[in-house]
């Protein structure tokens, strides 16, 4: 059998590539009402759905039995932290803050599920069980996103 010379290059090679693409996602009615509540009312709405209790942020269907619909319930802007993940060295442009911060799950008063959000200040006092309150983006700057709630702050 004829043999061929090996390729000249033997060190590991790689190529850089970026894959980036824009999207525009429809909220649908349920998520849309929740986000409009943040933007227009500074209120946090949940949905009482089949076999799941009051879900915040609400989804269109029960995750237990797939039933649609439910009763809209306003929950408090205060609640209790159920999980903490502190980010001590944030990555610029990727994380929601350039200063040390914490991702938290907050079970708002009146809700049966916990909402994922951030705590930006007084991290030394933050722990599971801490009481927190929503702080809001100013009027005219709320765009109908989850960050219309700027963050949660620790309540003494």
């Amino acid at each position: 059998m004829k043999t061929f010379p090996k390729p000249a290059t033997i060190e590991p090679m790689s190529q850089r590539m970026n894959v980036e693409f824009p999207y525009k996602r429809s909220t649908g009615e349920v998520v849309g009402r929740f986000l409009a509540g943040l933007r227009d009312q500074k209120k946090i709405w949940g949905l009482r759905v089949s076999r799941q209790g009051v879900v915040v942020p609400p989804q269109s269907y029960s995750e237990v039995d797939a039933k649609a619909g439910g009763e809209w319930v306003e929950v408090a802007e205060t609640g209790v932290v159920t999980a903490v993940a502190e980010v001590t060295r944030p990555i610029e442009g990727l994380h929601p803050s350039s200063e040390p911060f914490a991702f938290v799950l907050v079970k708002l008063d009146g809700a049966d599920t916990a909402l994922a959000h951030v705590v930006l200040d007084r991290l030394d006092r933050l722990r599971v069980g801490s009481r927190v309150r929503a702080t809001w983006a100013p009027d005219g700057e709320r765009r109908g996103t989850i960050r219309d709630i700027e963050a949660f702050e620790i309540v003494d």
Partner: protein
Amino acid sequence: MKRPVAVVGVGQTHHTSKRADVNVAEMVREAVDRALLDAGLEHDDIDAIVLGKAPDPLEGIMQPEQYLAGALGAHLKPIIRVHTAGSVGCTTALTAATHVASGLYGRILTIAFEKQSEGNAMWALSPNYAFTQPMVAGAGGFFAPYCRAYIARSGAPGHIGAVVAANARENAGRNEYAHLRDPMTVEEALNSMMLWEPIRFLETCPSSDGAIALVMANEDHARRGPRKPAWLKAGATFTEPMYVPGRDQVSPLAGRTCAKWVYDKAGIRDPWNEIQVAEIYVPFSWYEPMWLENLGFAPLNEGWKVVDRGDQKMGRHLPINPSGGVLNTNPIGASGMLRFGEAALQVMGRAGEHQVGGVKTALGHAYGGGAQYFSIGILAAEL
């Protein structure tokens, strides 16, 4: 199939260019709710869920099988996701069928969807691939050379593509779920802008938002259901890598192999005379004559003559795509399952205004990738 499998429920959305009123889960649930209602079932009756859609970059939802699990009623049930590009809808239905045929599941909910308005399928499918020259072609740019090669070797006259498109539009006018339904003449198609030689604007598929869901069941459940089932006589998928030596991109071997396999399993010796209606995957007009040959409905290089004679029209020898097909409705991930589901509706006798008379056997077909994945189901009125 090792054990008989039937389609017992069909549900689809009214397909359109933009469903801004619903999110992906809500759009998918419209089809699911209709399929369950059609089958006389509820989520509790379903044993497993099989989901299919085109690649994630189309809407940018990472792992839709995770995002949709709650909406699809997957709690404490198996859910799997199928990926085979444009053919995925038909492959997904066949994956659901093999799960039923295994004997492990009695009733399966299978769903396929695309919400093209949330992204841009043409350019999302043309990313920069490492190590090779990016073509930035989109599907039309990719498939047009194959159509040119077909015309060159078959000697097909130039108007055939426009005839296909006008006939598909006429059919879509009878399908209340179709996306494009306004009347369109051959002349209008011929006079529309040339996008990718030889494919003109009105000879190409639209971008659609839509979903379809099917309930598939074993023989016992199918016979006890409220409606006449559509029996799956045979189903198969075959694949062909891009650079196989001697590859024929115009009439790929994988497609011909897939067709022969299902005809053999279904006991069909003469598909042109033993099949009464076919829903085949035609995203660009010229693919109709190409697939008529690939599927064995016409001899090599003579598929265009079927179109020229009009034998593929409603009321003629073998109506092709009475639903209006992909040329008029293209929620990509759903498009293959729409072919399969429409074939099922035809043998059930429930296709509405686009019902073909006397259908005993129907074919549903899809292809995907660079004409690399082929997926065919043969549906029959009797087991």
